[in-house]
């Protein structure tokens, strides 16, 4: 017996990490002069206390599922794609172009095409760093982060000079036609006769995100490509021995990763703003790294971690609105969660492992 049971590995340890992060945050809240218990309950109530809060929480979570999956699949090939931000921006551009080009009759038709557009643009943006890594050995961490800047500049250029509505002052595209607007949580639950708040932007993209989780799970553990991606991730030399082409695996994996990040566009661009605006990604590409780390690169873990970060995001907004706690504090809490689950994971893991094995030995 040398392995922890799964429930300790993927549930208990992240929970303890989270509790410690929240505890340290509580100290900071105390220092600011607010009551941490009140702040916490406000945060939780604001995020999941009513359908309005849930609506926003799930909207954010949808973004994080896409970017978290993008980072996860690359992690399986031991590739660190931190270009989710830029790939999501370009994905948004792809979605916007699809939505604006054709007078869509109904979202049932426009959504699948937008999915393809977002994925294609995201993948295309990832293709250049992938090629440079696979063929030239340029480190993908460096190239993807540079591509984030280029993407951002490209978007500014396009929105200011090309895609802007003539005569408008705002650097944004025209609003998408009726047939390219997605049903929101209010609409969808309305079909089922369930009441749901009208204002939050959660929309049908959440279902696409959940489907993506299943698809990625299937890809990683049930297909030959997933088998080769995982083999390559664990040992490049062994993969070569087995006749697996590193160039192919790097290219394919990063393209899938970029496509997933690009899919975020259907949620934020098509589902929420219904037009392409500057900064539609809002850091979700980077949150995806934390989500993938916390979710241990497992699609189900990514789903849970994305919901958690959604709660932190929405709860944080509520805090900023109703208390003197600045919104930045929520960034502190997020940073603490990332620090504890990512960088300091072993700090908690080791003692728990030791304790567990001691108990196992004592038990036998």
């Amino acid at each position, binding site marked *: 017996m*040398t392995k922890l049971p799964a429930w300790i590995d993927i549930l208990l340890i992240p929970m303890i990490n989270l509790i410690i992060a929240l505890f340290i945050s509580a100290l900071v809240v105390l220092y600011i002069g607010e009551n941490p218990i009140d702040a916490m309950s406000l945060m939780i109530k604001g995020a999941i206390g009513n359908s309005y809060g849930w609506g926003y929480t799930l909207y954010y979570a949808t973004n994080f599922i896409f970017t978290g999956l993008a980072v996860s699949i690359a992690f399986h090939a031991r590739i660190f794609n931190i270009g989710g931000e830029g790939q999501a921006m370009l994905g948004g551009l792809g979605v916007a172009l699809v939505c604006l080009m054709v007078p869509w009759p109904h979202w049932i038709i426009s959504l699948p095409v937008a999915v393809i557009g977002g994925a294609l643009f995201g993948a295309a943006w990832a293709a250049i760093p992938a090629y440079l890594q696979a063929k030239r050995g340029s480190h993908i961490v460096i190239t993807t982060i540079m591509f984030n800047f280029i993407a951002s500049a490209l978007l500014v250029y396009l929105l200011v000079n090309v895609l802007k509505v003539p005569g408008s002052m705002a650097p944004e595209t025209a609003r998408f036609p009726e047939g390219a607007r997605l049903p929101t949580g209010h609409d969808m639950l309305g079909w089922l006769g369930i009441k749901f708040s009208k204002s939050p932007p959660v929309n049908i993209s959440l279902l696409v995100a959940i489907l993506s989780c299943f698809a990625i799970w299937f890809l990683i553990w*049930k297909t*030959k*490509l997933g088998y080769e991606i995982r083999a390559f991730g664990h*040992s490049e030399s062994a993969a070569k*021995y087995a006749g697996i082409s590193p160039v192919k695996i790097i290219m394919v994996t990063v393209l899938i990763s970029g496509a997933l990040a690009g899919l975020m566009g259907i949620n934020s661009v098509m589902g929420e703003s219904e037009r392409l605006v500057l900064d539609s990604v809002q850091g979700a590409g980077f949150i995806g790294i934390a989500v993938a780390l916390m979710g241990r690169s497992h699609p189900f873990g990514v789903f849970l971690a994305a919901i958690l970060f959604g709660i932190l995001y929405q709860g944080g907004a509520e805090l900023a609105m109703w208390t003197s706690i600045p919104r930045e504090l929520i960034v502190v809490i997020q940073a603490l969660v990332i620090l504890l689950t990512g960088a300091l994971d072993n700090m908690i893991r080791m003692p728990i492992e030791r304790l567990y*094995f001691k108990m196992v030995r004592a038990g036998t």
Partner: protein
Amino acid sequence: MAAPAIQLKNISKSFGPVQANKNISLSVNVGTIHGIVGENGAGKSTLMSILYGFYKSDSGDIFVGGEKTIIPDSQAAISAGIGMVFQHFKLVENFSVLENVILGAEDGALLKQSLAKARIQLQDLSKEYELDVDPDAIIENMSVGLQQRVEILKALYREANILILDEPTGVLTPSEADHLFRILKNLRDQGKTIILITHKLREIMDATDTVSVMRAGEMTATLETKKTSPEELAELMVGRKVLLNVSKNENKAGDIALEVKNLSITDEKGVLRVKDITFEVREGEILGIAGVAGNGQSELLEALGGFRKAEGSVSIYGHSLNLANPSGQEIRDLSIAHVPEDRQRLGLIMEFTAWENIGFGYQHENEYSNNWGLMNNKKLRSDAAEKMKKFDVRPSDNKLKARSFSGGNQQKLVLAREIERNPDILLIGQPTRGVDIGAIEFIHNEIIKLRDEGKAIVLVSVELDEILSLTDRVSVMFDGNLIGNKLTSETNAMELGLLMGGEAN
């Protein structure tokens, strides 16, 4: 009688749930060479690491020269007079011998004085123990045997009275090994105490005065070397009777299966590692390629295995391989199986389960994946169960990760995968490196069985005994050249040893 140089009393140590050392007691007299043998994972290295201060024992006491000593780190071990020569040398490659010797034992901020002092001491030591080394030579220009002498000098410079050597002959040619043992005997005669850890029984018989055997974390016996035999030691190590020599029939060589002509290999750094070699292997024969590690054998196997570029020509039953653009898939399609030298780095994905590993390299085959790219995991699992049973892989649970198996059982996993493909040609590198004696017997028999079925086999090994007992023909690789194509029955260890050292005609 004087107090023993080293005495261990009831040393125990566990890692997590694994108990690596159980109540070990050992006493080594001053001025003797004491051998410690045991299979991989028997706890030899753990015990020596405790002695050298890398690990702290859970319980038990250490006595050095009769005095109870606590060794929390290697500094304490050095001041207690214990020196260690590791299997993998710990030398600074671009420093001179002198600089390496004083490293960490300098007398002050300025080096000049320490260097001068070390130079004189080094001269004395060389004279005293037949340890000739040029003090100004740069390490990376020296042969492995000389580098090892520097390690020994380092320990002696720190006034070690007790010298521990961990698998010291793994990288040496036979003549270098002989020289090492002369040095060790010399040291012993001058009153030093030596602990020699090895898995080679022949070395134990040749060099030691007393020997201890470890099995599964326990010290099973301590014997006088004169009063024991290799067979007895092997039995103590494994816990059952072991055949040390394989029996095999005369071979019946058939058609040429593999033909290599003018093969040259340049590595990533631009160094020519294999120089224009030519050989052939026929059906039903085992060609042995002997040689000290690092003379180009690894590169040769990688090129034949389809994952290293080469120049020249290789043909399999008349079909030429594309050497400029190698493909592991092409190799497998030509019914060539490859058991790589380094099973942990190449042959297995350590984080994969046993059943995932059983299809590794063959994931394209129809039985393991369909045209839609879906893996047939069910088939993999049932295949794994069957093959693991046949090759007696222990534990037999195919859901365990490759990492959780012992070295011998990992090797059996690779062999089960490759041999059960029933290949026409088998490339096999270091088949028994780090493998327990009990499993060696099994592996050797499997290789012979394949040969008797008329398959062509290329066996690369640094173990001369293995080459001599298994192969039909043998060549030696030295510095990228393939020399001395001989019938195994007409050569001997002495002759091959000379070829391995490049000292041949």
